[in-house]
């Protein structure tokens, strides 16, 4: 039987989806700041981050209220805990996006022509995030299961970028500051991938009740 308060769960889910799409947008915006060298986008990124923070708080409040008043069990509990954790992950993603945008703004335009694997990494990370959120929205456990493996590609790309930027610093000492920014940006993108993976793992938990974190399947090769 559908109860009158079950609609509140739908509200939480809707908020989650909204927050997810905002997170994808904010990461995309941050990458554009870097790639297109458009520092005017930074303000937008920061504003979007504020909205995401607000949504994070709303979802937390709704979840706590639901726990207090509705005594949820089974898949409702999983949805609520996952919503709480994932909203935290999304909030972190937004923070990484802000960091990317700010570092992009701090860099001297045109100083480093080659961003190495960064655009590719960003593309993969965005795809990963998008798929994680899709897995949540569509309740697609197969898709969610595939994501931790895909994160390894991002890690590999990031390591390559890191090594190349290390060499770059040794060769061009004057540009070392911008290169270090790029290193951090790459790291942030890699972090976005990690958060997306965490979301996917939570989605698996939400849908099946199995906790796949820190198992052989998902172990990160740092």
């Amino acid at each position, binding site marked *: 039987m559908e*109860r*009158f308060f*079950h*609609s*509140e769960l739908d*509200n939480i889910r809707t908020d989650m989806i909204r927050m997810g799409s905002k997170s994808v947008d904010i990461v995309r915006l941050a990458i554009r700041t870097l790639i297109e060298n458009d520092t005017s986008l930074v303000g937008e990124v920061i504003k979007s981050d504020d909205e995401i923070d607000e949504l994070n708080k709303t979802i937390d*409040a709704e979840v*706590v*209220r639901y726990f207090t008043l509705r*005594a949820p069990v089974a898949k409702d509990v999983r949805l609520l805990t996952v919503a709480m954790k994932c909203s935290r992950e999304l909030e972190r993603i937004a923070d990484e996006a802000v960091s990317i945008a700010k570092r992009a703004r701090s860099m001297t335009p045109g100083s480093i022509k080659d961003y190495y694997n960064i655009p590719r990494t960003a593309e993969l990370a965005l795809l990963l995030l998008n798929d994680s959120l899709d897995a949540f929205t569509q309740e697609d456990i197969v898709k969610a299961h595939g994501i931790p493996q895909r994160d390894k590609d991002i890690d590999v790309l990031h390591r390559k970028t890191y090594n190349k930027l290390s060499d770059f610093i040794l060769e061009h000492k004057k540009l070392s500051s911008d290169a270090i920014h790029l290193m951090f940006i790459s790291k942030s993108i890699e972090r976005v991938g990690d958060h997306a993976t965490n979301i996917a793992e939570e989605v698996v938990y939400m849908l099946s009740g199995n906790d796949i974190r820190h198992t052989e399947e998902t172990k990160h090769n740092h």
Partner: protein
Amino acid sequence: MNKMTKNTTNGTKEVASEKPDYIKVDNFSFYYGSAKVLHSLNLDIPYKKVTAFIGPSGCGKSTLLRNLNRMNDLVDGIKHEGDIRVDGESIYDPFLEVISLRKRIGMVFQKSNPFPKTIYENVVYSLRIAGRNSKSELDTVVEKSLRGAALWDEVKDRLHESALGMSGGQMQRLCIARAIANKPEILLMDEPCSALDPIATAKVEELIHELKTEFTIVIVTHNMQQAARVSDRTAFFYLGKLIEYDKTEQLFMSPKVKQTEDYVSGRFG
């Protein structure tokens, strides 16, 4: 659930009641013989909202509820101080006939108490005793009340069978239909689900949620989850005193008084 109720329960937003002190309990004390069972209660119950009374057994919550329609008048040796006003009018007004008060305030009891009559006659009982016997009117009321009590589809083909052949949950909803048949303004519920299984309980709770668009509902319950689920306001009583009265979320999420905190978190006693 339909769209309409979705809006009213959405999140922490609450539609303010048009009459926040529709029922006003004003410095009310109550005695059984020499035992004082209610101590100077002050409480405003808002119009068209669900207000829940919770508290351990013997805390006076049922006594207060049964005073709202003066059901306690049946007991010998009672005495009260202070006043209770419904929509500004004292229920102890000597010119007020207690029968007419009870017609304005319907009541549903802990144990479902259908009369040994047909389903139809149970619903129209309050109309019959008021001398309203027009067949067409009664038919309309029966359908409307049973629909209101979410029972129509289950019993429409056996309206003229005995009410005692129904299931426990159906009987309780029949009692609700009977209570709302005469269009009262207030609906009092004294632990309406304490004898029902979870599914019947859920149905009654759904019903309460729908009925609050039409009635001011006061519910006494031992089940804190139920109070949390169905009510807008919750009052916590202990030993005949009102310990805390607040919006339900507030009372359950961050109660101000330690006793309330202990009670709702199960650390009481």
